[in-house]
């Protein structure tokens, strides 16, 4: 695709964002409603010298992505709920072995096979805790076709910089929504390239400097390192020594902490004096935006806080946005997931309530507007 205006589906915008970010390997498995990402990648990658492979299952496609990334190539996969479940074991390996990778998860109704062609936002907690054990990762939630494109690029940048799996979570509605977007010119983007080890003899693959992020190596660079999902010391080899494990796990689990400024993205609309604050993400945030505007027109001091980064959650930003709030409303297309995080952060100061739909239908602005009015009247 050349630069300029284009009408794109969200799934196609995801694929084009990946190509623009430098993704040159995609392994996937067909699953509704994400398949168009794989289809588009199968067409685009050969044009830029990349490789597409449809693997035998979801597990294999995640494993192949890690193999390609370990080889030094920016890599991604795309899936939806059931496939996301299957990918979790290798997402854990990516976190543990610090192999950069991007996973697009086009959320659909669940649990189990659920409603493959209907939207949902029900993998928010699975994104965070789907793989066993404590593990670092980043999850982004774009709300438009344009944002899917841009956040997919950002996902690669964050993944390459911090060596964590980065998930791009959106839903069937935006995935299949057609919106005009401006595609950036090649060379106009700030792309993050992996920091490679410099060939020094003393290189340790999991020893980090002040930024907490070790330099990477790949076959052929001469370091001949070991990569394992076992708990490993700085030299990459397995260890069970409690002091060493504490040290390396502290770095692994804490490595994103000092980079919050760069990782956490969010938007605030009318939050400064908001007495009723809506916290919404993805497609639900678009309905919330309209509801907040309507509430303002009726004289209610409503505001919207829209996290774009869901994990790690922009905690301080929410506290600031909720500073004047007496109540917080969290509309989501699930039975109440991100609301738990919002409660954790601000339940001492304000009343937190959810607004939930699990019927495969997007939340409508009027639903949110009604709840805003009720909450404002209750205050």
């Amino acid at each position: 695709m050349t630069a300029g205006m284009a009408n794109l589906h969200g799934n196609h915008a995801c694929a084009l964002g990946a190509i623009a970010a430098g993704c040159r390997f995609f392994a996937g498995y067909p699953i509704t409603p994400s398949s168009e990402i794989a289809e588009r990648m199968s067409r685009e990658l050969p044009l830029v010298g990349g490789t597409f492979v449809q693997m035998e299952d979801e597990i294999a496609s995640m494993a192949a992505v890690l193999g390609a990334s370990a080889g030094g190539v920016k890599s991604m996969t795309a899936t939806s709920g059931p496939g996301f479940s299957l990918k979790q074991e290798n997402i854990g390996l990516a976190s543990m072995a610090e192999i950069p990778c991007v996973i697009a998860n086009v959320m659909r109704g669940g649990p189990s096979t659920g409603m493959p062609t209907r939207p949902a936002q029900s993998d928010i907690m699975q994104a965070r805790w789907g793989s066993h054990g404590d593990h670092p990762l980043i999850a982004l939630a774009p709300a438009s076709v344009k944002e899917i494109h841009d956040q997919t690029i950002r996902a690669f940048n964050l993944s390459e910089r911090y060596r964590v799996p980065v998930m791009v979570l959106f839903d069937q509605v935006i995935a299949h929504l057609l919106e005009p977007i401006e595609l950036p010119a090649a060379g106009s983007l700030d792309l993050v390239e992996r920091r490679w080890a410099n060939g020094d003899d003393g290189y340790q693959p999991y020893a980090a400097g002040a930024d907490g992020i070790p330099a990477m190596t790949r076959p052929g660079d001469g370091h001949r390192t070991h990569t394992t999902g076992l708990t490993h010391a700085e030299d990459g080899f397995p260890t069970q020594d409690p002091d060493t494990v504490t040290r390396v796990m502290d770095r692994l689990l804490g490595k994103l902490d000092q980079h919050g400024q760069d990782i956490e993205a969010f938007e605030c609309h009318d939050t400064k004096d908001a007495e009723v604050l809506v916290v919404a993400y993805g497609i639900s945030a678009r309905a919330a935006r309209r509801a907040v505007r309507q509430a303002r027109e009726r004289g209610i001091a409503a505001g919207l806080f829209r996290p774009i980064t869901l994990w790690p959650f922009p905690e301080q930003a929410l506290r600031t946005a909720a500073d004047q709030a007496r109540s917080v409303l969290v509309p989501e297309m699930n039975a109440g997931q991100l609301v738990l995080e919002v409660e954790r952060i601000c339940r001492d100061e304000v009343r937190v309530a959810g607004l939930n739909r699990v019927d495969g239908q997007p939340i409508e602005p009027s639903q949110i507007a009604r709840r805003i009015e009720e909450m404002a009247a209750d205050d």
Partner: protein
Amino acid sequence: MTETNPAGFEIRDYLRLDLMPHFMCPGCGHGIALRALLWAVHELGIEKDELAIVSGIGCSGRVGGYIDANTYHVTHGRPLAFATGLKLARPDLKVIVITGDGDCLAIGGNHLIHACRRNLDLTCLMLNNEVYGMTGGQVSPTTAETRLTTTTPAGNTEPAFDACQLAEAAGAGLVGREVTMQTPALRNLIKQGLEYPGFSFLEVISDCTEIYGRKNDLGESAEMVLSQKSDMRPEAYGNVADQPFRPNRLLTGVLARNERPEYGETYRRHADGVANGGKAGA
């Protein structure tokens, strides 16, 4: 004995010596398989920097970590899938998968049949010790019927896989089997696998003396490998009728060749055709 102590091959040149002593049990056949592999790598002149070893979980999964190369110890059953991504992204590398009977045939069975079908240039070394050794000796897909394991206390009632027949039927480019006792022959088989431009599936009949052997009263390691040897029939003997007293349970040597295009080459040719405006595969 120059064959087993060949001039010019020093196994220490290929091992991470600071990890010694290794963790394999006394009598375990996996070390012999490792030696045969490194011997083959040496004789083919494969550079350690260009060598990537991908292994899964279990005793076999820990073998790769001792090799002074680019080593990846990944999730259970997934080394073939990981290696597929690595080899497609980095066709310049020599990628060897070391896996076990549980890793490859049970939890990783789907990846095996599709790796065979795809025929990407990988060499898969399946160390078959007929048991889940790492977890304490449970029944595996290659455990012989009637054998005792910790999960078949009255003897195994399930039939075993013939992994080579499976690989051949699934389309693997080259299929072979050897016992650890025939180390030079094993080295030769691995060399053929490494030189084959496509997917080669090599089954190594290894032995788990400490757990499986002890449980089934199969004797010490020497007795186990001797009985393994006598249970096998070299493929080169053909279907001769003059061995009526040999059970001839399994064949050894190169057992199948499916001459087919290597997948990485095919994909890159297809991709180049598309990039140059032609039709796929043009």
